[in-house]
């Protein structure tokens, strides 16, 4: 379904060495899996999702989606099988366009767009029904511009848009992080429902360990561009927040040792 073979990606940063965002990632995600990704800030979680989506070309390695090598394929082409929700509620929708226009755009994700009109009365009714299921009070505001919506409403709409045409892969990048707790909870509920309904293969980045355990069937732990933990199956069922925390604090200890070692070596050198 999703396969990374030795994927390596660096970014240029002014005045410092290139940052290694993905350091030889090898991972395979099967159809129907719901993977949650956790890790420290800057560990490469977003870069991992962006590599799947094709936001950039990787330095080396290969990426396979649905057994097809997409390593060099454009982002807009991969979009035909990928639905996405971003951390920033502003990223997933077009603010100057109406709710209805946004939904119409999403309904044609990856399809050819021609000179036919999709803003018909028939579609309006259909969209209204779909919006009702969000329980966000959007069903009577089809002509309101999306710029007027709250962050939670936008994320709900984006989630709906990402799944309206069933994607082969759903990518969620900390999509509740920018919301207040109540809205975040609503979005989590909606995520669970939409993913369950269509049995979507999902990769979700989250900053919350409890969310990572609450949702999904498998956990990937990232650190410094590497996948340092892959918890699935029975182990995943037994895992508690405490276990995750322990693994990260172990990591911190190791790193501290590393740093000390380096500074000792440096002192010896001078």
């Amino acid at each position, binding site marked *: 379904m999703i396969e990374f073979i030795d994927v390596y990606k660096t970014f240029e940063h002014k005045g410092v060495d290139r940052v290694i965002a993905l350091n030889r990632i090898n991972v395979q995600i099967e159809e129907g899996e719901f993977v949650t990704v956790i890790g420290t800030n800057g560990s490469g979680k977003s870069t991992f999702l962006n590599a799947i989506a094709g936001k950039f070309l990787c330095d080396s390695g290969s990426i396979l989606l649905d057994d097809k090598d997409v390593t060099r394929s454009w982002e807009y082409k991969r979009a035909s099988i990928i639905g996405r929700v971003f951390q920033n509620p502003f990223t*997933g929708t*077009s603010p100057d366009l109406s709710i209805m226009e946004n939904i119409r755009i*999403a309904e*044609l994700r990856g399809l050819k767009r021609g000179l036919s009109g999709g803003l018909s009365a028939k579609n309006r009714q259909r969209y209204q029904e779909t919006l009702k299921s969000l329980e966000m009070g959007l069903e009577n505001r089809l002509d309101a511009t999306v710029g007027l919506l709250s962050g939670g409403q936008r994320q709900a709409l984006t989630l709906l848009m990402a799944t309206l045409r069933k994607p082969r892969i759903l990518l969620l990048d900390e999509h509740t992080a920018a919301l207040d707790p109540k809205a975040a909870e609503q979005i989590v509920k909606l995520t669970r429902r939409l993913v369950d309904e269509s049995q979507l293969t999902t990769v979700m980045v989250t900053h919350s360990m409890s969310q990572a355990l609450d949702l999904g069937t498998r956990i990937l732990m990232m650190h410094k561009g590497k996948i340092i933990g892959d918890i699935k199956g029975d182990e995943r069922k037994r895992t508690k927040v405490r276990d995750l925390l322990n693994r990260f604090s172990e990591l911190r200890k190791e790193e501290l040792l590393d740093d000390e070692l380096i500074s000792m070596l440096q002192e010896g050198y001078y």
Partner: protein
Amino acid sequence: MTLWFGAISQGLIYSFLALGVYLSFKVLKFPDMTVDGSLVTGAAVTGILLVNGVHPLLVMLIAITAGCIAGIITGLLHTKLKIDPLLSGILMMTALYSINLHILGRSNLPLLRVRSLLTLFQSESFPFSQDVVHLIFFFLLVLIIRFIIVWFLRTDLGLAFRATGDNPAMITAQGVNIHYTKILGLAIANGLTALSGSLIAQYQGFADIGMGIGMLVAGIASVVIGETIAPGKKIKWLITGVIVGSILFRLLIALALKAGLNPIDLKLITALFVLLALCFPMLKKIIKNLFRVKDKE
């Protein structure tokens, strides 16, 4: 009376330019300097073909196509060679200056006594004066183009085009190649601009190499007026607003000239007007803050 007729006719003719600028500058968020050149291209192509006796309707289509090609090249410079929008347009505009001179063969080409779109509609049988006939012709043409643009912007392709300027990351994630939609938009914008150039050459009776100077700014001025007077945010109101904005802009100019404004200062005043309009949100904030300080005192 003829003064007002002239101003309104010009406003209608330049409304294609204003619509083009609306599409590139407002919808795509692409300040496209190409229009300063493609307007002249439209006029030059029209001039030389009319002088050589080509049918005016065919001439109009060729002029629009020439403008579209200019827009496509600007779009290619920007998308494929990653050149900044403003610079892409400036490069194209500069190149067009030479090309336009080549087409014209000289810096000013008179179009007197040639068969043009306007002479097509001359007939003894019309009960009104020629000015009125021209005005009606321009008005009908504007109505048709307005209808087409409003229709296009609500099609699936039109929605993708609008979202491209509004949120390129989102529309890419929805599977749209924004290189394509940007190039398409610039082609339409410059095709419309060339149509303005073509008509203004026929209306004035000459094509001139300098007639494009300041056209982007004039277009922005019309768009700004149009957005201000548009009664709603719906596409059809905005498009109608831009057309009325273009007419008001030409009326304002006519009024200013009648009141004794030196024509030399026209572009200066227009630039100041656009500057003011662009700074308006900032000015509003500053003034608000001033009052707030006063409140405290």
